[in-house]
């Protein structure tokens, strides 16, 4: 008998066995032991997904001894709060990243790529399974320039919520399939007696840029920028979309330019408006008898299609480890992020009011039946546009320009062409200054 091949085979078997036992031996409690007593600071928003996570946190703290300190902010303050903290080398250990901030945070090196932790067997959960995240969501919310920094946490897609009772009264047995149908067929029949067919939240903040302006660009074949990073707002597609929005305003409540999410959700929930396109996260509000008069009438579907297809609004937040945290805090932060976004906890998060980005949870029996928005959400996450809004570092300044002129267009202070020209020239000046046109920065969004 030849000894060497036998010894080699035994060695291989032992190695495989060692890896298998190592993998099955990983537990959060063991991994967290060196970090017990660590306190982590993180900014949370005042939204259902965060409330869901807050309810889960005591279990994490009990298992690990790691304390999570939450600083709550409305969305409008959360970026400036975090930027100030990172610039001043403050206390935040976890970064909450809107998908449009990822370029900014990554280029400033305020966040740590996840592979620092996924390559560490002491910290990486073998069940992490990044492939279980919807690829669009992981790529758009958590990755920049091919590097993954954050795991999707508070995840949205734009969905169409409608009052089926109002539609039925007006003679419709289904929601509109296309934007054109919404305006030309549903609009006139649903707008009467103080009620309106549609409301499009358009307040002069990120709502204007994302919910209103971008929403009418992509489905009509438009976009903010062309492939050379020059303004594309004067293109046929963009102008068609912006003019469409102007026409659609006749079927919206007066003062729509002052409507933010709360006003729009409320308008539907109180039965004043028949159809809205809003974030999936608001399903809980619309199906809660305490906050909605139309619980028995609410239905959900994917956003309408435009000539360029279905391009629903895309938005959401990932959690990433802040680079200003020390090594111990970074490790503890990673354990929390990995746990709260895990496959194992996805169902709990969903049941508590959150919207996980794990594909597996939506395949569980009964989930689609219990949560009426699931089918529309899954469909939307197959078709979304990662660059629905540019995610580069200059977005915070660019969005201010879009917000200002987007609302001026809606108020008819300028035409769509004038507004587009104004936005275009200002954005191009901004991008030129940043170095996109002379090759200093790659054309990544």
């Amino acid at each position, binding site marked *: 008998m030849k000894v060497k091949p036998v010894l080699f085979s035994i060695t291989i078997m032992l190695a495989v066995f060692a890896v298998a036992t190592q993998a099955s031996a990983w537990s959060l409690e063991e991994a967290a032991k060196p970090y017990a007593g660590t306190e982590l600071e993180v900014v949370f928003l005042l939204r259902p997904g965060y409330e869901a996570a807050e309810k889960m946190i005591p279990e994490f703290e009990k298992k690990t001894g790691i304390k999570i300190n939450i600083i709550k902010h409305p969305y409008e303050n959360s*970026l*400036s709060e975090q*930027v*100030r903290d990172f*610039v001043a080398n403050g206390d935040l250990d976890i970064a909450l990243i809107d998908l449009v901030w990822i370029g*900014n945070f990554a280029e*400033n090196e305020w966040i740590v790529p996840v592979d620092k932790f996924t390559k560490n067997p002491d910290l990486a959960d073998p069940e992490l399974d990044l492939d279980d995240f919807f690829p669009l969501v992981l790529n758009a919310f958590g990755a920049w320039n091919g590097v993954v920094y954050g795991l999707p946490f508070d995840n949205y897609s734009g969905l169409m919520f409608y009052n089926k009772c109002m539609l039925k009264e007006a003679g419709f047995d289904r929601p509109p399939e296309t934007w054109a149908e919404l305006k030309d067929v549903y609009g006139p029949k649903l707008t009467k007696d103080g009620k309106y067919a549609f409301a499009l939240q358009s*307040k*002069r*903040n990120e709502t204007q840029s994302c919910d209103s302006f971008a929403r009418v660009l992509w489905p009509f074949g438009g976009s903010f920028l062309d492939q050379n990073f020059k303004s594309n707002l004067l293109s046929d597609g963009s102008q068609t979309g912006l003019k469409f929005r102007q026409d659609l305003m006749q079927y919206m409540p*007066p*003062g*729509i*330019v*002052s*409507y933010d999410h709360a006003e729009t959700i409320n308008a539907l929930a109180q039965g*004043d408006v028949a159809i809205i396109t809003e974030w999936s996260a608001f399903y809980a509000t619309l199906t809660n008898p305490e906050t909605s008069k139309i619980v028995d009438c609410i239905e959900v579907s994917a956003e309408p299609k435009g000539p360029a297809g279905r391009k629903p609004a895309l938005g959401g937040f990932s959690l990433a480890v802040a680079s200003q945290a020390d090594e111990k805090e970074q490790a503890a932060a990673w354990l929390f992020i990995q746990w709260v976004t895990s496959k194992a906890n996805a169902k709990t998060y969903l049941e508590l009011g959150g919207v996980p980005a794990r594909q597996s949870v939506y395949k569980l029996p009964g989930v689609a039946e219990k949560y009426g928005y699931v089918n529309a959400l899954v469909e939307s996450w197959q078709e979304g546009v990662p660059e629905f809004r540019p995610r580069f*570092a200059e977005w*915070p*300044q660019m969005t*201010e320009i879009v917000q*200002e002129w987007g*609302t*001026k267009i*809606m*108020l008819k*202070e300028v035409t769509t062409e004038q507004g587009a020209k104004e936005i275009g020239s200002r954005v191009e000046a901004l991008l030129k200054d940043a170095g996109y046109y002379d090759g200093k920065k790659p054309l990544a969004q």
Partner: protein
Amino acid sequence: MLKIRHPRLTCLAFIGPAVISLLTIGIGPLAFAVYTSLHRYQLTNLRRTPFLGLENYQTVLSDYVFWEAMGRTMKLLIIVLPIQIIIGIGIALLLHKPGMSVLRTLTRLSLVIPMATTYAVVGLLGQVTFNIKYGVVNQLIGFLGFAPVNWIGDPNNAFIAICFWDIWQWTPFCSLVLLAGLTMVPVEVEEAARLETRNWWTVLRYVQFPFLIPGLTAILILRTADTLKLFDMVFTMTRGGPGSATELISLMIQRVGFRGFDQGLASAQAIILLALTIILSQLYIRFFYREV
């Protein structure tokens, strides 16, 4: 003549804390603002902060959006200040009248309530009060038979709403300052004037008004400075919208500096605003202030 000498150290000990506070809270930040206004100071890109000289100031002064915001702010000032002074004088004259002391005391106390309310709360109250569907204002005008008015969502009405709210909040301040001025009028002089004439305007113009001038000058300076930097109430009520209809200069500075993160440009805007405030204050003192 007896000269009293104080040790240098004692003098420094008394004025030192105040000077240090002034330097830390006032002069230091101002100096840093001047520094950032001369540089490209983008919070999201602090690796590059080149010296720009006066380029930020040039950008600000040639930006019509800045002048539009400044125009709106001056328009607010020109509308609300005279109304506050006129109503303030009226209230002060009523409170100065003898008699009904309990009612006068209660009224004086209740005048403090609007001034004591935090700006941000006033703005939130405004959001609720002027709501098109649920607001008190539309309920009241509905009782009079008028259709609901779109206050917050209409550019012109939103501006009227913030004017109204500023007048509501600060007219009591004007009335209390002017009331203090009226109490400075010598009683015998006022009595003699009232014996000469029953005309309240004659008494106000020739007897009481000279004593109101110092108070009026203080009101002009303080209310001008307050209005030029008005932020919280408008931000919570309209956020500068709809569109730019209520974007005052302070909101624009906040937007540029803390949402666009361009601290250099925002500092230049703030320095220009400071210069304007100082010029207006000096003009008020030069043209209005008289010793009694």
